[in-house]
């Protein structure tokens, strides 16, 4: 029966319910800070700034009382892929001598230039800092907090016509439905197997996988769409009216710690974006 277990692999996000200053921060400030840093990291071209961000994030992780093991787990899983990307960049990125890139080593079609070293180092730094940042957010913020925070943040956009409450509701519905889908998939797999379909683990080669996918996906999509229709009817019969004039059960309070965190995030983002040291 383990062949049909889908629910086991369904935990996503890694919220760690620990008491820490970071955990206690308003989710809005955490989301905004992460957003600023994310944008800054994408744009940043300075290795020194990336290093600074790296150490600051490590400090924040310590502040969040997150065990180092949890933080390093994704890195432990990802390091071969990161290595592959960086090595490929080192060896295959073109660096024209006219652009000021001196070739350091050449062999067949592979060549390492100063430009490719720079790109590889930047990418490595960016990937690692991004990993730290997103994992820190995931470890310190529960999904409920994320949904409430997102909804609060989107609210001002409601004034320019964006359906803020609706968007947050879509997110909430999506997250609520994922475990339901797990149970539904298990049921469908067992039902199809009882009808003689060839499910169960093992032999999930390409052709087998495609053959098994259709009798699984179509019932899944159809029942989900039917559920969505029922949900819509249920919402309407409870007079759901969208964002207009809607009051909220959960009120988020920001305090000085949140503004400090936001300020710090803005400063670091500015350094990442602007600096040529």
């Amino acid at each position, binding site marked *: 029966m383990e062949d049909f277990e889908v629910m086991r692999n369904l935990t*996503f996000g890694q919220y760690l319910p620990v008491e820490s200053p970071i955990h206690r921060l308003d989710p809005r400030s955490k989301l905004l800070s992460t957003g600023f840093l994310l944008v800054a990291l994408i744009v940043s071209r300075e290795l020194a700034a990336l290093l600074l961000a790296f150490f600051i994030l490590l400090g924040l992780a310590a502040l969040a009382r997150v065990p180092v093991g949890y933080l390093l787990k994704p890195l432990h899983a990802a390091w071969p892929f990161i290595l592959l990307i960086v090595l490929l960049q080192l060896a295959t990125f073109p660096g024209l001598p006219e652009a000021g890139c001196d070739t350091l080593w050449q062999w067949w079609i592979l060549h390492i230039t100063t430009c490719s070293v720079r790109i590889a180092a930047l990418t490595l730094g960016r990937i690692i800092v*991004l990993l730290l940042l997103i994992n820190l957010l995931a470890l310190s913020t529960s999904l409920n907090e994320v949904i409430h925070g997102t909804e609060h943040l989107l609210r001002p956009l409601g004034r320019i016509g964006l359906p803020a409450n609706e968007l947050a509701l879509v997110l909430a519905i999506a997250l609520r439905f994922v475990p339901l889908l797990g149970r539904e*998939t298990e049921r469908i797999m067992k039902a199809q197997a009882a009808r003689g379909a060839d499910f169960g683990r093992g032999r999930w080669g390409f052709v087998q996988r495609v053959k098994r996918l259709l009798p699984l996906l179509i019932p899944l999509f159809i029942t989900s769409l039917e559920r969505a229709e029922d949900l819509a009817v249920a919402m309407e019969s409870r007079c759901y009216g969208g964002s207009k004039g809607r009051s909220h059960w959960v009120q988020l309070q920001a305090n000085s710690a949140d503004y400090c965190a936001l300020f710090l995030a803005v400063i670091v983002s500015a350094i990442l974006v602007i600096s040529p040291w």
Partner: protein
Amino acid sequence: MKMSTRQIAIAGVLSAISIFLGVTRLGFIPFFAGASITIMHIPVILGAILEGPLVGTIIGAIFGIFSLVQAAIAPTGVVDPAFQDPLVSVLPRLFIGVVTWAVYRAVRPVNELLALALAAAAGTLTNTVLVLGMLALRQYYAPAILWTVGITNAPFEVAAAIIISIAVITAWKRIEFGRKGADL
């Protein structure tokens, strides 16, 4: 921009399927050399065809954001470190809905089935081309490598998307008409 309750519910549920396929790895059909065929963009295509470009874009955004978060929290694929970059994982996915809907709307007067097939193909190609394009633009992989992966994967991804989209939508529309009774 108003969203009907039905649009909210369908957007939520299809986003859930996309997240679910990603988290359980059911959405990855392993192919050669570590690259796999993915079907997580199909809910985006379905949402766009059934409910329009807004719903498609929303599902695409949620799909993209979750692939970003998955890539950082539980990386399992070669491209995952690059997917932490929202320009690679989120931005391309915002366009799948619009393109799919536009193609569907344009071809629909000619033939419904053809419209479904072309829309699914267009949506899949949008996903593939834009994601690989951003990977190249952001210099994560050399264009030659991406080109090879794209050429080998794309036909199968398009085929899978067309088959699944047509199967689901024809079954769904039949159910819808069945429930409503006579289609006057």
